[in-house]
């Protein structure tokens, strides 16, 4: 088996505004099973960061444990990374984000890491609205322990072992919406046309952004009877619409005015142009999105695309009014203002 990828790239590879090619955003050669959906998501992250011309050293990859959480080794090898304890990526990211608000945080987790062992941490991360992108590589099974049903497996869905799952699944998108996340999306690893813009939007969004990305496990859960197989998801996915993200620096051009439903300005001046049929789902309204998700579930469909957007959401730093500067830019005088100030402060509390 090859463990190295050639350094040769296409001689005419495009460069982004920073002069980087995609190769500057790549990582090591994947050691996941051949055909794993996670690799496509890794590639979509590479594409999104390349297209947004992010500086690799201003990105931090955060992950827990599981097949999904291995993937940060396979993209952005010039960025920071923290591979934490199982299910504890949210608290580590919270700490990192509190210490340095200037980095782009890309959290990578799986359905086990998020919906089982990490559920408690996940819920609080959403409520606090930590400014990060949280991608769940959701395959409905515990791949690393050989394919047991996970907490996101649908009732009646059977993995390779053949026994249908009997328990109700968690819907991470519904949870995140109900806990106040301002950017919630569902996508599919096999649809980069949809996934890459979603990741770009999530990076630009201020506050917690969830992308629940169905990512088939070719080894344990890509069989007939599974609702997380390539074939089933392709046959049953239905999109809320499409959108394009226009970064702050660029001139706003609407690709298809006929289809334009709404333009939403993000906090940094970037604009998300939403395209969908008139009269369809209003993704700015939590209630209608939640019921649409339920309706889709009843009819056996998977609703994908940007599910909920609230561009007014405030991230944790804004909620608790922290310093605008990262800790690493503060010197001793900033961090320890001296006895006089301390005494005055204590006095004010007496």
């Amino acid at each position, binding site marked *: *088996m*090859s463990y*190295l*990828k*050639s*350094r*040769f*790239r*296409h*001689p*005419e*590879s*495009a460069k982004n505004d920073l002069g980087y090619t*995609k190769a500057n955003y790549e990582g090591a*050669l*994947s050691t996941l*099973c*051949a*055909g*794993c*959906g996670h*690799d*496509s998501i*890794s*590639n979509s992250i590479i594409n999104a960061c390349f297209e947004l011309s992010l500086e690799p050293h201003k990105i931090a990859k955060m992950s827990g444990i599981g097949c999904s959480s291995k993937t940060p080794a396979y993209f952005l090898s010039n960025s920071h990374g923290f591979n934490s304890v199982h299910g504890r990526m949210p608290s580590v990211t919270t700490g990192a984000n509190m210490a340095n608000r200037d980095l782009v945080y890309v959290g990578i987790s799986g359905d086990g890491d998020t919906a089982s062992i990490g559920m408690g941490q996940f819920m609080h991360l959403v409520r606090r609205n930590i400014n990060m992108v949280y991608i769940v590589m959701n395959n409905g099974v515990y791949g690393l322990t050989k394919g047991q049903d996970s907490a996101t497996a649908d009732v009646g869905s059977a993995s390779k072992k053949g026994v249908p799952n009997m328990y109700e699944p968690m819907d991470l998108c519904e949870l995140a919406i109900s806990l106040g996340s301002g950017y919630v999306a569902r996508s599919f*690893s*096999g649809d*980069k046309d949809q996934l890459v813009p979603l990741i770009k939007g999530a990076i630009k969004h201020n506050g917690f952004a969830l992308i629940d990305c169905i990512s*088939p496990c*070719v080894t344990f859960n*890509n069989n007939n009877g599974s609702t997380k197989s*390539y*074939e089933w998801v*392709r046959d049953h996915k239905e999109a809320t619409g499409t959108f394009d993200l226009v970064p702050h620096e660029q001139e706003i051009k609407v690709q298809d005015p006929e289809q334009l439903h709404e333009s939403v300005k993000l906090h940094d001046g970037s604009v998300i142009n939403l395209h969908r049929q008139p009269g369809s789902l209003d993704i700015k309204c939590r209630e209608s999105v939640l019921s649409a998700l339920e309706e889709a579930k009843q009819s056996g469909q998977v609703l994908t695309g940007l599910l909920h957007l609230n561009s007014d959401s405030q991230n944790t730093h804004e909620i608790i009014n922290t310093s605008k500067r990262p800790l690493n830019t503060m010197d001793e005088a900033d961090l320890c203002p001296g006895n006089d100030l301390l005494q005055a402060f204590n006095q004010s509390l007496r």
Partner: protein
Amino acid sequence: MKPTNIKDPEYFHKVVDCQYACPAHTPVPEYIRLIAAGRYDDAYMINWESNVFPGILGRVCDRPCEPACRRGRVEEEPVAICRLKRVAADNKEDIKDRLPTIMPKNGKKIALVGAGPASLTVARDLAPLGYEVELFDEQDIGGGFMRNQIPSFRLPIEVLNEEVNYILDMGVAAHFKHYVDSLKSLVDKDYDAIFVGSGAPNGRDLTKLPGRQEGDDSIHVGINWLDSVAFEHTKSIGENVIVLGGGNTAMDCCRTALRLGGKNVKIVVRSPQADMKASPWEIEDAISEGVPIFENHTPKEFVVENGKLTGMKFEKVRAEYDENGKRSLVPTGEDLVFMEADQVLIAIGQDNAFPWIERDIGIEFGKWDMPVVDQVTFQSTNERVFFGGDAAFGPSNIITAVAHGHQAAISIHKFCQGESLTDRPAPQVNLLSQKMGFHEWTYDNEIDHDKRHLVPHVDKEIALNNLKVEVEKGYDQDLGYEEAMRCLNCDVQTVFTDNLCIECDACADVCPTNCINFTDNGEEEDLRTRLLEPANLTDQDLYVSGELKTSRVMVKDENVCLHCGLCAERCPTAAWDMQKFSYSVTKAGKECA
């Protein structure tokens, strides 16, 4: 686009850029792998089957394969294919027991005119089949222009003798020192077929330039002069030498002159240096031996004083190109330039000459007074007479002469068997999976990132003082291995089976050069604009699959595929497989029944 028909052997043949570009279609990656494996005899024999003169071509081939090499598009320089061929020749052991066995005589007799590469190739193909082969040449030894025009510091005589003799030893009746001055005399004899491989023996001269006659003693036509050096009639030259011309013969002339005592040897060409016809590496070698090149100088006059050549006058010109790219050399109007010279070598091209072919023996002559020869069968308008090499379509190179020889041999064989000449044998092809086990391949699929390795040269002091010291030492086994590893194995094809694909994108994600795309189908022109990477090189094909489940198609731009096999390793359903494509041009008498 319609799905690519990979059953057509020409599709994958074209992907193997080096082999496709080679006139003889030598299976380059196959023998390079054998060199890496230390199997020099096997590597040599693959070459010998295909191009007849591996040791010779490994030194002096025009190497059309190298500019075509995919490696040159992926990084800076192609694999040193030519010099690897030499590694096989240098390191082989005795291969005589592998040469073809000679079949009993079949009662057919053929005559070959000229003992150069084209004729020798015909002999190589037909003698083993039982033909009685008679070879005629004016020299007393075989090799043709490989012997009398290529100096021995580029091609040692032993190497030449060895490979010429493999063929002569097949029972060829060689009539040396026998200049054929009448083709009619051969036609009138009982030969079943006659092959003319007499080359393009006439070097061009500047007969009309003032002073040409007066200075004749000191002015030589390049190829004739090289010839007389090769046969040791000429052993010295004056100190100041001007070589006129920008082709490989000019390079050989100036380097030979240096070795015969020339101190101040210069090349003067009419055109800009960039337009010179010589191979870049030949020019490089001449320059590195200290030969200056004066470009844009048109010869105007040989200056002869008191019956002795003192130099030449040149007019300075500049090249201008019209909208069709056609060049004209326009005088700059400056004063004529005088350059001192004791001797001048004229190497400005060569022509065919057939004064010895009678015009009433059924051989039609056409444009430029060249015989009318069929491009495919190499038959002339006299059905018993065939042409090949430079004699057929004008001056080219050794490897082209070999390719002609093989095809002419097929024609002669078919002609003698009473078969149709236009019914050409199909190539022998095979496509074989290289899968050894789970994600394991029989070829070394890891990509080597080394730059092209330089070929060691002998010390310049030594080289310039002896005409017979070969300048290049060639790669040793270690360097040969290193260079062989640079080969991308383009003959190991990425074969896609559309009904196995589940469209997981794993191949597209892992491909280092982003060759693989899953997209909506369209016309080629449109598809080329929609791929992940620019696909502007239109002579590199797009490999298009049948329609997939999502109604998209797989489109692969063959251009810079590294043949690294990662697509196949990352494919969960073995929709991609790495399969070795072998293609060999069928030789005379080897056709499948």
